[in-house]
């Protein structure tokens, strides 16, 4: 076992800010949706819009970070070990079998995580951002404007936004639970808080895709 620096300062800042914003957006969003009552509708709208803009700012920084550090490659989905990883969660985990994928600072995500996070990044989040912006800046069709740019109503936009919200909410639940499935129950959580995690020592196998660039943020 070797203590490794897995999650860098920005990565952790990004993760926790994103987590807080998504929870906040979820609560205010489901209040606007009519599912819950918490802040009051008008406050919920105001908060939701503000948090949404904050989230956009965060996303811009996160995208910049992912590309400059090359960390985006962590999220490229792979077939390799995908089945093994799924089988691990269904059977292996109960028999105390070790994780089929080795976690290293250069390959932090197992194949299932890669798939799910890639899905969030290229599908769910973009849907939420685009439908959210359309929702926020939606203007009802008016006379003397370019008619072909008119969207007939909020319905399609709002329903898409709702679908995304449900997907994110169920991801949130699964994510919270899967945090406990690390080497120990709290090891994943500790790693995301401190940045350090006890990982298996030894050279990285060739199969795992190493990050090509050296991380820009040197510690």
């Amino acid at each position, binding site marked *: 076992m070797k203590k490794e620096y897995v999650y860098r300062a920005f990565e952790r800042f990004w993760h926790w800010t994103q987590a807080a914003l998504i929870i906040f957006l979820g609560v205010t969003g489901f209040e606007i949706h*009519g599912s819950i009552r918490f802040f009051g509708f008008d406050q919920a709208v105001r908060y939701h819009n*503000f948090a949404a803009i904050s989230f956009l700012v965060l996303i811009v920084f996160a995208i910049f970070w992912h590309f400059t550090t090359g960390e985006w490659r962590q999220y490229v989905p792979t077939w390799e070990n995908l089945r093994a990883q799924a089988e691990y969660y269904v059977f292996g985990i109960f028999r105390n079998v070790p994780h089929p994928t080795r976690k290293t600072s250069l390959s932090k995500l197992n194949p299932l995580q890669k798939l799910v996070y890639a899905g969030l990044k290229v599908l769910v989040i973009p849907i939420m951002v685009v439908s959210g912006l359309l929702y926020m800046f939606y203007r009802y069709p008016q006379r003397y404007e370019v008619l072909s740019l008119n969207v007939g109503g909020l319905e399609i936009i709002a329903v898409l936004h*709702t679908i995304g919200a449900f997907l994110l909410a169920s991801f949130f639940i699964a994510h919270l639970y899967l945090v406990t499935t690390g080497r120990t129950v709290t090891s994943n959580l500790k790693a995301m808080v401190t940045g350090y995690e006890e990982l298996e020592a030894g050279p990285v196998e060739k199969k795992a895709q190493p990050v090509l660039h050296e991380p820009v943020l040197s510690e």
Partner: protein
Amino acid sequence: MKRIFFSLLALGIVFGLITTALHKNSSEGTPLARLKEGHKTKAKPSVEHSLFPQLKKTFTRPQEVTAACISCHNGRAAEVMHSTHWNWERTEYIEGKGIRPIGKRNVLNNFCIGISGNEQSCNRCHIGYGYADATFDFNDSLNVDCLVCHDNSGTYVKQTGGAGLPDPSVDLSKVAQNVGRPARTNCGACHFFGGGGNNVKHGDLEEAEFEPSRDVDVHMASEGPDMVCVDCHTAEKHQMLGKMYSVSSMNRNRVECESCHSTMPHSDDVLNKHMLKVACQTCHIPIYAKVNPTKLHWDWSTAGKLRDGKPFEEKDSSGTDVYMSIKGSFIWGKKLKPEYIWFNGSASHYLIGDTLDPSRPVKMNELFGSYDDPDAKIYPVKIHRADQIYDTGYGYLIQPKTVSTRPGDGGYWSEFNWQRAAEEGMKQVHLPYSGHFGFVETEMYWPVNHMVSPKEQAVGCTECHTRNNGRLASLTGFYIPGRNYSSWVEYLGWGILALTLAAAVLHGTIRILISRNRKEI
């Protein structure tokens, strides 16, 4: 440790920014303050009419007063005679009917129904003297009643059943020497009492508007800007701004809140965006008939019951008429939430002689508009419903003769005979009567525009943005956040959430059980 500190600090900064930004100050901003400031100084009359020799005399006929007015105010009578206040008619384009002269002579309502044949009584509210029947001379400027609008003495009253002539008790000389800008009482004397009593017709125009509190009318309250009717209903050459859709059709000459308050009156942009589809009145007039009840339903078919051969009236516990032999039964309402419709500013009208379909309510003045109409907004309306007389043979509404001026003239209010009232009334409008009558349901739409409430009492978000029984529940076919949702997305979404949670709980439980077993071994 340093890193934890750094992350926490960064998080703290972000949330600090969020919370401070969310606590926006709610100050009104300057535009409203400027408007209020502008109404602090009230217009003062520029001349003292009581000093004019032309008015310091005894007038025996009201027409003499008019002559005195015209002797200085050269040409003003001609302006008045171009107005709808005088002509009770305007030429309008009605969708589906073309360009038509419409007004009180050919548009019926579902209160006292119509003026034809009843001029002696109804036309008390005409701004002229002696419009007692169809032969009235609209070109005689001496019949213009300057005083009904310009009396500032508060003593001018038109005679009941006097076809617009002043009550004999009125001291014309005193009134003539005290003329000025129209006050609330001048407009209210007619516009608050249409339909035969206070607040019968509009629901938002009634005697409480003479001296309203701020809660009743934020504009006219003396503790507020203390505005009068003509502050909004301004006039150029005696042509008043504004009209009512009971007798007008086109989207023109309207009084707009926006002309003073601008199209972006709120500090919150989300509220300003509402204005594309929601009229100001919809949120800012949460209830109407705030002080006194207004008539909601009028059933003419029960009229005519007599006790010992005499007409009678029944009142409810609050002293409101619920039955009158001459008019039938009424339902009144007070402190009412308006109904809401899409309205683009144009209307149609039931014109005398139009055929009707008795199987559904006749719309006396259909207000046009729909969600898809880019010109339409959601407006609050009072809908007055009635059962009124129609000709079952010809299939059109009947103009009954109600007012009786001499014995045997068929006036329903003294003879209680629908056959005679129908015969005589239809003669007045030059239409045949088949001899068979029935009662048909009718609806009349009254946009609610007055008695704007203080902003604190404006309709709150969740009165419309709510799943059930919101104010806009009857307006369907479009998406309102918080009200509408896709039911399959809802089932699927909550289903997926529940499954995920169940899977996590199950998986976790098994893990715990297994690890416990392992320890025991």
